[in-house]
Each structure stands twice: as C-alpha cells, then as structure tokens.
C-alpha cells in the first residue's frame, strides 16, 4: 500500500500524466534547452571577438579603480557671476512677481517665486479675493515653461525659419488674401483680454474681411447662450456660496471645473460649522465628482432624471402649469420623496438657496437662472459676469463648413488645439490643410501645429505680457517673469506686426489701460498688484434683474428623449482634476497627480458602477493568484478593457469600477490620448474628445467587454475605512450643535490599572515629555470640512520640495514619492456611521470573517471623505526611536527632521510610521535616463528649488513642514532685529499657501493669540490615531456633515 502512496509537491506533479513538464524537470534543471552548444559551436565568432575574458577583467578592474578614485576627488565646480548684475537680483534671495495665467482653460491671479531669475513656484495672489485662485494645474504650469519639447523657433512646413521670413511671408499672404476679399479667420482661445480684443479690432480694420472666432475645447456654449438670451450680454453668472443655506447642484461639478471653476473658496467658507451653522449641499449627478464627494446628500442619477428634478424644482416655484413636458418619463417614488424634501428645504431657505446645473442645454440653464432670480438667491450674481468662457458652438461649426466650401483664405489659430479636441477632427484637418494660409501659434509641435503651414513658436505665459478682465470690472495684468527661453513670440506681437504697428505689446497695453481702464490710478501699482478693480464699472444687482422680468405667461416646452435601446449606455465626458482639457499633458507632475476620487495616476479610464460591470462581464475576480484578478501580487489594481462605440468610432479603454456612478452611465475624462508634441511616456490614456460630438458631454454609446487586462497605477489600494471611525472622525451638524464634545470627538483611552486613562496623560506615555513652550512651535491644522480634495496642495508640495516623479511602473509598486497625499475613503454602508456600527456589532469568528470582508467593498452610493496626510511631525515619533543612525530626529520647533546625508536606508522608520508618510528613494530619480522626466534634462531642472536638497538613491524622505521657509522667516526677523510678526509664518508652508479653501492652516502655537493655537484647542480638533500616543503636530478638525436624520 505504502508504495502506492504518492507525495506531490505541486499540482503539476499530481497531474504528471498529462503534464510532461514535471518529468522534464525531474531529469533536467531547465525545461527548455539551453543553447550552450549553439553558442560554443560558433567558434569563429568566439575567436574573432576582440575582447577576451582577460580584457574584460582588465576593464572591470580598471573601471572600478577609476570609479573609486573619481569618487574621492571632488568635482571642479564653476561659478559664473553676472557681468552686470541687475540690481533687483541678489543671489539667494527670492523675488515675487504678480502675474496672471490665462491659457484658455485655467485663469488665475498668481504670484511667481523667482530665484536668480528663474520662476520656480506658483503662489496665490493674496490681493485677489480667491475666486480666481490657482488649482493643481496652475501650480504645475511653471514646469511647462521648462518643457524640452517646446518649439524653439518658427517653423514653415517642418523647416525652421527666421521670424523675419515668417513675418514677411505671412504679411504678404494676408495682404494678398485681403485684396482678393477672401476671409481671414482668427480662431483663438478665450482671451478675456481687453487689449488683445482692441488689437484684434485693429487687425480687423486693417484686413477688412476678418472674423474672430473663439473656441473653448470644453464648451460652455449652452450656458453662455442661456445667459445671453436672458441678460443680452455674453458671459456666465458668478456665484458666491459663502452665505448660502442650501446649495442644490444638478449635474454641476462646481468644485471642479464647472463654468471655469473657482467656486470652492466661497463654498468652503460656508461649510465651517464653528458658529453652529453651515450650508447644506445636495448634489444630483451621474459621475462621482468632487462636488458629489463633498455633498451632504448625493443622488446618482442619469441625465434624464436630472432634467426631471430640475423641472420639478422649477414647477414647485413657478406653478406646475408653466411647464409642459413632452415625455412620459416620471420620477420614481423614492426619488420623488427626495426631490420633495429638497424643494421644501429650498423654499424654507428663501434667498439663502441656490440652484445650479451643468446640463449642457440652453433651456435647462435658463431654468436655473430663473429659479435663482425668483428666490432672489444671494449667492447668484449675474451682474459680475465671469468672462473666461466665450465660445459659441455654432460659430466653429459654420467655420468648418465655410472652410470646406473654400470660402476661407486663412486661418490663424492661437492657444487652441482643435485637431486634438474636436470630435470631428478629420473634416477640420482636411479643410485646414487646403487653406491657402494656415498659421498656428503654439508652444509645441502639437496635433494642430503639425497640420499647419506656418507654426509660430509662441511664448509661455510666464514670458508674456497681457491684460485680462476675468470678471466684470476685475482686471488683471500678466507680466513676463523671465526672458523668452527660446526664439519665441506671443500672438499679440504678431498681431501688432501685421497691423503695421511698431510699438511693443507692453506699450500697447499700457496706453490702452491709461486711456480706457485705469481711471487715473497708477499703472506701476497695478502691475505690482497684478490686479486692478475698477470701481465705476459695477452695476447694482437688483436693477439688473428687474430689467429682465420673467415672463409668467410663457409656457415652457421640454422634450426629453428616452433612450429606448437598452444596450446603449450614457457616457458622461468630464474633465479630470489633474489634466483639464489636456493642454498640459506633457507635464509629469500632472501625469503623476493622483485623481482625487479614483486615486489613479498616468491614465484615464471608463468609470462604471459595479452592478453594470457585473452585467457586462467587466468585473475581475477579487485578489487571488490567478490571472484575471482585480489586483496583482503586489497590490496593483487591474481592470478589464472594454470597447466603446459611437456611430463609426470605437476605442478600447480600460474600465475602472467607480462607487457612486449612476447605474446605466459611464464616465470618461478628456485630456488624455495626446499623440503629438509630447514625450512618449506622456502619451497616456485615450482621447475622449473623439466622442464629444456636437459639444455635448452626454453621448449614448455601446459597450462591449474584452478579455484584455489593463494595469492601473493607483496611489491608494484601500478604499474603505473598515469602520475605523477614529481615522476620519465625523459627525452631523445636529449632534455637533446639541451634544457634548465627548459624544462626537472622544479622546482615546487606555487602561492603566483597570482605570481608563486618556492617552494624553503622562502616566501612560512611553516617551518622556519635554517643555515645548519656549521658542517657536509649529503646528498644522487640517479642516476636513474645508478640504474639497482638489489636490492643489499636492502639486504645490511637489514644486516647493523637489519631489521627484517616478513614473507609472513605480507608482504601481507603491513607490510613489508624494510627500503629501489626499486619502479618499468610501463608506461601505450608506454612510461611515453605519460602517462603524457594523464593525462594533461584529461578534464571533464567522461574523467577523463575513463582515470584515463585506466592509472592504464600497457601497453603491457611498459617503466620501478626503483626508490630506503628510508627515504628522509627532512629538513622540516612532520613526525617531528606531533609526539606527539617528537620521531622523526631533527639533525644538516641533518638526521631525530628516537628515538625508545621515540616512543609510534601513527603512525601519517607514515601517514604524503609523501614518505611512515616509518615502524611500528606490532609485536615483534625477539625471537618470530610466526616469526621463523633468529632472533628467537641464531645462527641466531649472524648476528645482535651490533651498531644498535633491535627494539621492537609498535615502528616506518625507514632509519637512517646509522648514526652509520657516527658517527663512526667522532669519529675516533676526536680520531686521525684531520678533517674528504676527501671522508671518502662516502662509509659508507650500500646502497651506496653496489651499485657497483654507483647509490647511499653519502657524506657531507659541505665538500669542495665533489662529493655529485656537485651532489646536478647538473642540473639533483631534489627532490622527491618537490611541498610538504619538502626539502629532498636525491636528485634524472633525468633519461635520449637514445631514438630516433619516425619515
């Protein structure tokens, strides 16, 4: 018997009858033949080889010795001073200049930090009110300046030419076309620039048959049309949510890029509950957006349901007989209940309410405008228009028709890339190529430039002059902060040349401002401030509305087309926080910027609800060691590819399960799939603009699963909190206002002699306590109520601290280097509170196995919470105690110091850190061809902050609380022989300075009456994982949700 017993080592051996690999393995070391004989048989080659084994050893020996010797000798460093030093530049001292970014998609008033003449950092202009402040993309834009794929000089038919030739040839062509009465078209981005407008008028008067068409790659045309038809001017209404009681958003991602964005600042002002009040935010939407993630109530809906909700709200205010709906669609009972309570809340809030919508249809935009007028919403401000979007869909459509008919002689584009961003780019390319004169102003040889006859290498905005009117009467100036790096010119320079003017654009702006805008104010002061508010141009609010009374008689018709084809899915195109419209696709910071919601980098993807994915066979099995699993062995997330089809177009796109995605809908972001004018590493994702037909972000498409697997690079693999409510503490407004602080922000306790003792007590502390009342003591406060998850801080931290970019492959291995990350958590039940209850009620093994398993999965429509995490600078730091070489140590000012030169790379500290904020340099990320990002070329390295070490391979790094900046403040005070001024530290750390919503606050708690000391002792304040007893110098403020008890 025993002889028959067979022991097997693996499944293959058991199955050895059918598997002869095993037999092979028993006999040989390798299954496959090793080509030793082949190799040795090539005697000729072997003997002919000039390098013998001895030579090889000699070379090895020599190079090792040489390398050793070279390492002992310091390199010769050259220093080249100025011949004539400009008096405003002192080496080692930063200058700040106010300027404005306006790239057609992002508009912001900013300050530029300039070191030795190099712009290295974007900051917000503190003089501006914050509504036009820098987002993540604007913070990253400084790196675009040092892009080594930029055009260095003008190009004609792929051959470089001089500006003189360019100007001469284009001018003579324009003159000829003008004589022949052919149409000359200026096809540009939205400039929102008064001086550029008057230059274009000048150009028009010179060449007669000129038309100027603006084109926004992501169109707000319907909203503009609605506004124009209501108020007879073209613009977008401004909103200020600071004092709103209820914000109802129907498909409007106003914390993202809805109508140009920039509403997060006023929104969060109304969300801080310290006086017992905060606004309530209800969001109806299809994709999970930043706004939905921050909402108190989020209802995932398809577009038709969203329309019905809006109509329902309208009816309740204006009477149901005002609207005629030509559809038999009705709200479900459940939804009807939600809408009814919403309407009641809106009505009781009176003027404190506001309704906004992102539905790209003029009629629905009008409904929202009328509702806000009717309730006299204080948030709604149509007088002060936002002027950063202006395109009219019909204009461009007509232009392409005219171009194809051969009526157009010349098209001059500037700041746009229609070949990339038009759905029907084929017909545009065809027409564009057949033009007698095509000129493209571009910084890159991008998709449009490569089809243009002349390409004018244009300036980066940091090299340009310009002026702007971003909102009515709010003017801004842009000034160059560096001399043009290459032989480039800006669009306006050429307009001046063509118009026959000899003056520079700077002089033109200056004279224009003196004549029309400044009203005897000082030009130099305006240039210094970067902004100028014209007082006389404001119009009183109520007058404006009364002029346009809502006609009560008119009956409104709405037709809602119901998609009968069940196979078709509703595709919602959206701009991603990190990439916007895709013009910054060659920016490695933005490529590696994790999406706030999916936490994915280097990709765009189709978001889908879990149940739809299941139905479509797009779901991968949970993590196992089989192929086709949702995660690979080191955790990397996988997704299946799907093919989506619209009419004749089809693209293969990876699928990502998005909790909260409305059933029957899909999401896909613009901005990816660029193919020209960027490095190969940056050609990521698919181009969603192909599906952007008729500038409508909602498309009905067919979808089909494939069996191919896509590998995502996600920054975070854990999606839920597993009921650990002490990581993100949250409560409701009602509890916050009525109950004792212990009920919703209880400090952790440990048992000492069977008595529960708070962890802050020295009796239960492992560490010795020090007196921290002398000198400065820095703290950082993060208000979870104010954090919208926008990620501006992440990029600002990158720029300030020389954080390297590691690439998709490394991110997938969780080797990302972000010093600051914003963790996003989904609830597994409908809310985090229910998660906590579920976890607390687990008893017994069986229950824990099933329940914990279930808690790992986010709910269909989860609550979302964001939590920015950087080094917590623990006063009792676990990392410091385990470092064998004392590379990590504590300073008196509260910071946890990291001495890179001391670090030997044991990584004990990272393992002992409860917050996982330490980052290890697995490779040398600068000057390494394997990581061919900005740190691998001289141009890209110009963005490096000279006050911060560029880390080398094998050392640990982490947030330093921007010690270089706090030290600079202290030194400045010492040099001036004075104490540090009140609040002088407050905007000195990069993340806090970048956080316009004011979620991240920094300061010195030993400073008398400082805001930060108050925040530290706020009743909402808590320390992350306080049970560990690390006593961090970063405090979080409990998240309060304005949720009504379930009825």
């Amino acid at each position, binding site marked *: 018997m025993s002889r028959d017993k067979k022991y097997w080592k693996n499944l293959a051996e058991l199955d050895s009858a059918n598997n002869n690999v095993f037999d092979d393995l028993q006999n040989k070391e390798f299954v496959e033949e090793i080509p030793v004989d082949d190799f040795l048989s090539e005697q000729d080659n072997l003997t002919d080889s000039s390098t013998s084994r001895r030579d090889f050893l000699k070379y090895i020996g020599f190079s090792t010795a040489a390398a050793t010797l070279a*390492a*002992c000798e*310091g390199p*010769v*460093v*050259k*220093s*080249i*001073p*100025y*011949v*004539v*030093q400009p008096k405003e530049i*002192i*080496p*080692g*001292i930063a200058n700040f200049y106010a300027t404005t970014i306006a790239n057609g998609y992002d508009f912001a008033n900013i300050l530029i930090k300039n070191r030795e003449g190099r712009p290295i950092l974007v900051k917000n202009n503190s003089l501006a009110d914050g509504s036009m402040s820098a987002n993540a993309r604007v913070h990253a834009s400084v790196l675009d300046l040092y892009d080594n794929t930029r055009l260095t000089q003008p190009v004609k038919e792929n051959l470089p030419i001089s500006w003189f030739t360019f100007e001469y040839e284009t001018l003579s062509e324009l003159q000829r076309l003008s004589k022949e009465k052919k149409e000359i078209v200026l096809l540009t981005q939205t400039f929102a620039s008064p001086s550029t407008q008057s230059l274009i008028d000048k150009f028009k008067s010179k060449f007669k048959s000129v038309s100027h068409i603006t084109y926004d790659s992501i169109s707000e045309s319907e909203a503009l049309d609605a506004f124009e038809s209501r108020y007879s001017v073209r613009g977008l209404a401004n909103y200020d949510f600071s004092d709103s009681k209820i914000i109802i958003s129907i498909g409007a991602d106003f914390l993202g890029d809805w109508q140009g964005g920039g509403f997060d600042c006023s929104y969060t002002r109304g969300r801080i509950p310290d006086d017992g009040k905060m606004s309530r935010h209800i969001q109806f939407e299809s994709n999970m957006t930043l706004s939905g993630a921050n909402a108190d109530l989020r209802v995932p809906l398809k577009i038709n349901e969203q329309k019905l909700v809006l109509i329902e709200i309208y009816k309740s205010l204006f009477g149901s007989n005002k609207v005629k709906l030509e559809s038999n669609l009705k709200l479900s009972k459940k939804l009807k209940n939600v809408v009814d309570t919403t309407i009641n809340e809106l009505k009781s809030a009176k003027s404190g309410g506001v309704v906004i919508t992102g539905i790209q249809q003029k009629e629905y935009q009008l409904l929202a405008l009328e509702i806000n007028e009717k309730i006299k919403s204080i948030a709604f401000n149509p007088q002060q228009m936002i002027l950063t979007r202006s395109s009219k869909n019909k204009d461009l459509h007509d232009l392409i028709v005219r171009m194809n008919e051969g009526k157009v002689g010349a098209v001059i584009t500037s700041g746009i890339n229609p070949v990339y961003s038009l759905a029907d780019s084929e017909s545009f390319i065809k027409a564009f190529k057949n033009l007698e004169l095509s000129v493209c102003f571009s910084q890159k040889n991008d998709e449009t430039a490569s089809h243009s006859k002349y390409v004018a290498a244009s300036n980066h905005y940091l090299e340009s002059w310009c002026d702007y009117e971003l909102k009515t009467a709010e003017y801004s100036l842009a000034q160059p902060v560096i001399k043009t790096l290459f032989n480039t010119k800006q669009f306006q320079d050429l307009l001046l040349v063509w118009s026959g003017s000899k003056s520079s654009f700077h002089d033109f702006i200056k004279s224009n401002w003196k004549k029309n805008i400044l009203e005897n104010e000082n030009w130099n002061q305006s240039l210094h401030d970067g902004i100028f508010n014209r007082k006389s141009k404001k119009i009183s609010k109520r007058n404006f509305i009364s002029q346009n009374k809502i006609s009560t008689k008119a009956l409104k018709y709405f037709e809602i087309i119901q998609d009968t084809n069940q196979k078709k899915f509703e595709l919602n195109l959206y701009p991603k926080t990190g990439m916007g419209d895709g013009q910054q696709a060659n920016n490695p910071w933005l490529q590696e910027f994790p999406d706030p919601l999916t936490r994915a980098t280097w990709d765009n993807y189709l978001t889908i609800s879990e149940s739809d994915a299941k139905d479509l066979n797009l779901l991968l099995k949970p993590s196992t060691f089989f192929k086709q699993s949702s995660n690979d062995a080191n955790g990397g997330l996988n997704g299946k590819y799907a093919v989506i089809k619209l009419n004749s177009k089809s693209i293969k796109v990876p699928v990502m399960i998005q909790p909260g995605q409305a059933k029957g809908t899909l999401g896909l972001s613009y901005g990816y799939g660029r193919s020209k004018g960027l490095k190969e590493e940056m050609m990521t994702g698919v181009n969603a603009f192909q599906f952007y037909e008729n500038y409508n972000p909602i498309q009905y498409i067919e979808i089909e699963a494939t069996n191919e697997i896509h590998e995502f690079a996600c920054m975070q693999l854990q999606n839920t909190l597993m009921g650990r409510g002490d990581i993100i503490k949250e409560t409701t407004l009602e509890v916050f206002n009525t109950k004792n602080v212990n009920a919703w922000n209880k400090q952790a306790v440990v048992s000492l002699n069977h008595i529960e003792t708070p962890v802050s007590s020295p009796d239960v502390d492992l560490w010795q306590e020090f*007196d921290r*009342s*002398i*000198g400065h003591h820095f703290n950082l406060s993060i208000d979870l109520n104010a954090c919208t998850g926008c990620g501006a801080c992440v990029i600002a931290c990158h720029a300030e601290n020389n954080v390297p970019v590691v690439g998709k492959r490394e991110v997938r291995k969780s080797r990302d280097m972000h010093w600051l990350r914003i963790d996003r958590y989904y609830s597994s039940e409908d809310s985090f509170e229910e998660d906590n209850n579920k976890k607390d009620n687990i008893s017994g093994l069986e229950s824990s196995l099933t329940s914990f398993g279930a808690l790992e999965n986010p709910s269909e429509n989860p609550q979302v919470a964001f939590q920015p995490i950087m080094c917590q600078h623990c006063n009792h730091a676990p990392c410091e105690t385990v470092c064998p070489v004392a*590379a990590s*140590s504590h*300073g*008196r*000012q509260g*910071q946890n*110091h*990291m*001495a*890179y*030169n*001391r670090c030997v790379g044991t990584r004990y500290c990272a393992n002992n850190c409860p917050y996982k904020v330490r980052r290890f340099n697995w490779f040398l990320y600068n000057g390494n061809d394997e990581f061919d990002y900005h740190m691998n070329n001289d141009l890209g390295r110009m963005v490096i902050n000279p*006050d*911060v*070490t*560029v880390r080398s391979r094998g050392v640990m790094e982490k947030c*330093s609380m921007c*010690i*270089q900046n706090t*030290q600079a403040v*202290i*030194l400045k*005070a*010492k*040099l001036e*022989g*004075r*104490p*540090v001024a009140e609040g002088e530290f407050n905007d000195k750390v990069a993340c806090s300075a970048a956080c316009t919503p004011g979620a991240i606050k920094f300061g010195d708690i030993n400073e008398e009456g400082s805001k930060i000391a108050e925040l530290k002792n706020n009743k909402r304040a808590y320390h992350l994982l306080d049970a560990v007893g690390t006593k961090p110098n970063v405090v979080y403020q409990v998240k309060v949700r304005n949720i009504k008890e379930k009825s």
Partner: protein
Amino acid sequence: MFNHSKTLSNNFLRASILIFVILFSNTIFSQDGDPVAGKALFNSNCASCHKLDKKMTGPALRNVEARLLEDEGLDRDWLYKWIRNSSSLIKSGDDYANRIYLEYNKAAMTAYPQLTNVDIDNILAYTAQEKVVPKPIATAVAAAAGPSNSSGLTDEIILGVFSVLFLLLSTGLIVVTKTLRDLAKMKGVKIEEKKKGKPIWKAYLENQFLMLCTAVLFLLVSAYGFYGWTMQVGVNQGYMPIQPIHYSHKIHSGDNKIDCNYCHSSAKVSKHSGIPSLNICMNCHKSIYEYNGETSEEYSKEFYDNEIQKLYKAVGWDDEAQEYTGITYPVKWVRIHNLPDFAYFNHAQHVSVAGIECKTCHGPVEEMEIMYQHSSLTMGWCINCHRETNVKVKDNEYYDKIHKELSKKYGVEQLTAAQMGGLECGKCHY
C-alpha cells in the same frame, strides 16, 4: 626763502608739520611749485578722471604745461582759468577750451574754485616730474636672502663642530675599550665569549604569540590609517585652484584694505556671499588700469597688468576709447568653497546676525596671493564652533524672549549657538 613761505595759505600752514618741513627743505627748486604737495592734491582732486600717462575720462596730464605751451601757446594763466571754472572758459569762446570740450564728448570738467594758484602750481609741478620706472624688488629679494644665508652658515659651523666632537668621542671610546681589554689580558682576567644563540628574527618567527600580537597591531594601525584616509575624502582644506584671472586677495584686501563686503555684498543679506559681478570690479578698475604696487619675480608688473587686461576683455571695456564695447566674456571662476548639496549654509545668518568676521572661516584672506580654502568645512568643524560660540543677542529684539527663557532653563548667562538649537539636524539639512 622766508618770503616764499609767507605766500602759503594759512590753511596749509595748519596742515601737518611734516609736510611743512619737507616743503621748507625743497624751496630751492620750488619756484614752480612743490611736486610732493602736488601729488597729494592730484590724488585727492584729479585722479578720478586723469592719469599722468594715460588718457582716461580726461586727457593724460604728464607735462601738460609744457605741452600746452608748445602746441597751443597757452600759458599757466589759461590753466588757472580752466581748472577753476572750465565751463565759463568754454562759454567765453576760447578756441582750445572748446576743442578739448568736444574731443571729450562734451563732458565738462568739474570746477575747482577752491584751488589757489599755489595749489595749481604744485599740481603742475607734480605733472612735470619725470616718469619713474618702478624697480623690481630683486634687491629686496637679495636682501631678504642675505640673512637667511648667514644663518645657514652658522648652522653648518655648529653641525661641523658637533661632528668633530662626536668623532673625537667615539675614537676616545674605542681607545679606552682597547686599553681596558689589554689591561685585563695583562692581569689574566678572562673575558667570557658570548654564545651564539638563535638570531632574533628566527626566534620572533617561531613565537606565535608575538606573531599574533604583531598581526593584530598591524591590522589596527592600518585600520586606523585607512579610517584617517577616508575621513579626509571630500575634505578640500587648502584647495587652491588656478583661476581664469589671477585675482589677488592680498593686493585688494590686504594692501588696499578693501572691505570684504564691498565686493561680496550679498553676504550681509543672502545665503550666498556672492561672487562679485564684473561691474563691481570696474568701479575701481576703470581708473586703475595698471599695477603699481610691490612686485616680485613671479608676479611682475607685466603679469598683473595683463590680468587687468583679462578683466577688461571679460567685461568688454575698451581702455583706449574708454567705453564698453558690449562684447562680454563672463568669467568662469573655479568655486573654492563647495559645501555639499545637503548642507544649507547661510552667510547672512553668520555675517549679519552673529557678527562673525569673514576671516574666522576664510582665514587670513588679506595675505592670500592665491585664494584657498582655509577651513576644513567639515561638519565637526561647524559643530565645534556652534558649541563654543555665544549667540549675539545684543540689540536684536528677536532673541529677547527666547534667550531669556532658554538661558533660565539651562541656567547660563549666555547661550551658545548649540543651546539655541544650532545642533539640530534640520537646521542645516533639508
């Protein structure tokens, strides 16, 4: 003689007695003024625009009086007028005045109404002096060599005497031993012959314990040596690279006493001391086109003058035409003090806040013909100083509170930089 001294102005009489004495002794040939007093006047009034032998902002002035008399027929009176108020002379329509005015691009000469005729006479006397060619300091070198030679001789004599003594002593010793042996033989004392034992090296090789000890000792010593060698890796104390322009700190800082901060001005406010831009050099070198100080064989006048020419080329200065050409060749200096990237050092903190002298770290710069790295710039060197140096809190309100509290805590009068937090890693490494 006495009459003449009467003509001197009262002011001048009040001037230094020394000058008076010199004047007095020189009166024999001072009918036309006194060149020594003239030189002082020339240097304080004229030298910023005029040189004796070279055209600068204004013309070269060597033998100006004789030249004017010869070429233009103008006498000293004309010169008095011109120097006291050239513009009125130009306005009066004087031919030569207008010509010279146009020749120098209508740059009017500063009026000197305060100069008396005697002053001007003195200046002219100075300009009339023959050019003195500075003699090389070969004699000085020889003179310096003299005493050192003589001291060498005495050493040799002493050595010689000693060696003769030594010889005498050793012969004496041999003679004495021999006599003693002979004496012993005579007396019949037997001297035991030493037995030939093992050679010492053999014994040593056979003794394993000794071998082990030696091996251990050898290893320890070589480990110590290796450690010492590794510790100096990357320490470039004494690093003295050859610079593209031979800039002598000795001449500028030592001989001419130029303050360090005049050129390295950003040291007071910034982290970098700053290598001065070339326009700073030209503040002085516009008028200093040649070197007239001490020279040696290695560093001759020609050598230094050539270095000044290098500066002119770099900055694009046409010394003949006295104007900038606009063609520049920025100088690629070799950086001497190289701190590694991971160490943050701020000059302003040390120079302005702490009031540390430059030479504390940079050594006797005023004696350095070629600049070199004086200090080791190692971390231990930094730390030592931080431990020993007190924080300069006087007149700095920043320190008021923190110094009071901290000194109380540590129970000291004066806090050192280390106690103030100057040893924390993160203060220099970030």
